[in-house]
């Protein structure tokens, strides 16, 4: 999951430096787009804890993201935004509690059953916000954005400064999430998740209650999605049912596959590339979904390991060890491609 060489670490550091420098060189519109890309990256990172690390393909992950944004809306009084230090923990907690309930039920199933159940529970939340008056119903609602205040001091920002400040808040959160996940995945807990991904039955046979580990991963992933959802509320100051809908979850899955699901930086790369692609597609063709659909087809058909899976010849052996697919399976796949 982590870079295996010094070169890889240097690449990461360089990537972080480039992201940090972006607001210095681009127009405000692109700063805001960058913030959106960071939010997407956090959502993809959080989902990858389930998909790439534990082998759980969930289609309801957007629910926790959207729920966190709605939580900010629900706790914020109309006239003035609350401090970020209040809204963030509350939103993350709400997402975590929802993930606990949904996970406890859906993890009783496996495989495609799990996928369908997570999707259905996610849609249940969608209907809740869509069909009732909570959060303005189908049209959504504006909210007073969380303020950047600390111990009574409020950071006063001009209209021009604010997007840049929010971009950096997003960047800091994303880097923290990356680092936290990197540590988590190297720990005993992370290794157990890896074991479950590779061979869950055997993990049970050697004494793991895999249900509990999967549930823990599901809750952590839900809370991290909550961080992303909270960031959305901070960034846009608007919520609508689309945030909870399953297209969001499917897009996050696509970003993961786009970037390569066997690395930790893959989802970030995928989210940035996908956001950029959507922007270009919208500008050029006005038919964003068409381009997205074709790109997904292309990736699924031709790049099964994503952007970060495009390796030089000779790297395949190490890649194989890292991806964990046994050679036989891989052979079958390439045969099918041919």
């Amino acid at each position: 999951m982590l870079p295996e060489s010094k070169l890889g670490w240097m690449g990461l550091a360089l990537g972080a430096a480039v992201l940090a420098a972006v607001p210095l060189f681009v127009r405000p519109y692109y700063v805001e787009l960058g913030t959106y890309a960071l939010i997407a990256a956090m959502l993809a990172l959080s989902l990858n804890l389930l998909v790439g690390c534990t082998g759980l393909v969930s289609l309801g992950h957007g629910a926790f993201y959207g729920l966190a944004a709605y939580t900010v809306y629900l706790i914020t009084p109309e006239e003035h935004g609350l401090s970020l230090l209040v809204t963030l923990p509350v939103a993350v907690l709400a997402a975590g509690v929802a993930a606990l309930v949904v996970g406890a039920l859906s993890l009783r199933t496996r495989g495609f059953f799990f996928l369908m159940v997570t999707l259905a529970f996610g849609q249940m939340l969608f209907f809740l916000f869509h069909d009732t008056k909570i959060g303005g119903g189908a049209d959504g609602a504006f909210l007073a954005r969380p303020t950047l205040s600390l111990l009574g001091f409020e950071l006063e920002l001009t209209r021009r400064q604010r997007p840049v400040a929010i971009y950096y808040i997003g960047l800091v959160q994303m880097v923290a999430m990356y680092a936290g996940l990197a540590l988590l995945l190297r720990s005993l807990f992370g290794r157990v998740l890896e074991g479950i991904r590779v061979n869950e039955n055997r993990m049970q046979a050697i004494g793991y209650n895999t249900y509990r580990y999967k549930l823990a991963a599901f809750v952590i992933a839900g809370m991290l999605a909550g961080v992303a959802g909270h960031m959305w509320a901070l960034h846009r100051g608007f919520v609508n049912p689309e945030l909870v809908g399953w297209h969001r979850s499917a897009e996050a899955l696509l970003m993961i596959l786009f970037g390569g699901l066997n690395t930790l930086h893959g989802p970030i790369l995928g989210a940035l590339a996908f956001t950029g692609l959507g922007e270009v597609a919208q500008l050029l063709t006005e038919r964003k979904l068409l381009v997205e659909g074709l790109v997904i087809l292309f990736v699924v058909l031709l790049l099964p390991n994503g952007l970060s899976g495009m390796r030089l010849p000779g790297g395949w052996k190490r890649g194989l060890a890292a991806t964990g697919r046994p050679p036989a399976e891989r052979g079958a796949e390439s045969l099918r491609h041919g």
Partner: protein
Amino acid sequence: MAESRAASAPLLSTSALGRNFGGLAAVRDVSICLHQGELHAVIGPNGAGKSTLVNLLSGHLAPTAGLIQLDGRDISGEPAWRMTRLGIGRSFQRTNVMSSLSVLENVRLAAQAVAGLRLSRLFTPAARENVLVEAARHCLERVGLMGVEDRPCGLLSHGEQRQLEIAMTLAARPRVLLLDEPLAGMGPEEGERFMHLLKDLAREHAILLIEHDMDFVFAVADWMTVMVDGTVLAEGRPPAVRANAEVQRAYLGGHA
């Protein structure tokens, strides 16, 4: 030793254990005892219910009748992971490992399962968990699988994977070992080494062995149970079983 067998309380015992699949009884009315320090072999023709018996004891299947007791405590129907935690370890007939992980990591995961996970160590790199790594190395040494710790275990030879199976089972520090055809696919030389290991292990564990190689079974077993059609046909010490006319007719045939 016949006297000592009767005198000591069994470590693991079943009484009238049964398992139905649909209307079919794969195992019925099986009552056996495993004692500490004893190698108990279960033999029988294919389809006699031996593997189902192991699956019942290891928690992979829940019994539909009867009891399983460990130290006199009823543990029937506990899930597999809890059986392992209670001290019942098993190896699989077909090699069943985390094939993309390294050899050492497979065994370390097994050691870690029983040791538990403390929340304070949630962010400590697994490679720095020295106690577990040492425990894993010790198990690998014991089964004679050294020098390949860092290899992905999907790349091991068949015989080495069988050894790894045993090492993973041992890493959970079980009191009862359920070995489902551990010799399958091993060469004669490996089989020889394995026999020594098995005799060694039998001193500290209660072992239930399922094996088709009759020469091997008669050489190592302290006690034998013969199963036919899901139920116990005969049991006793190897010489008595070998001489049993019913067993001769039903299973051993001309072999003994």
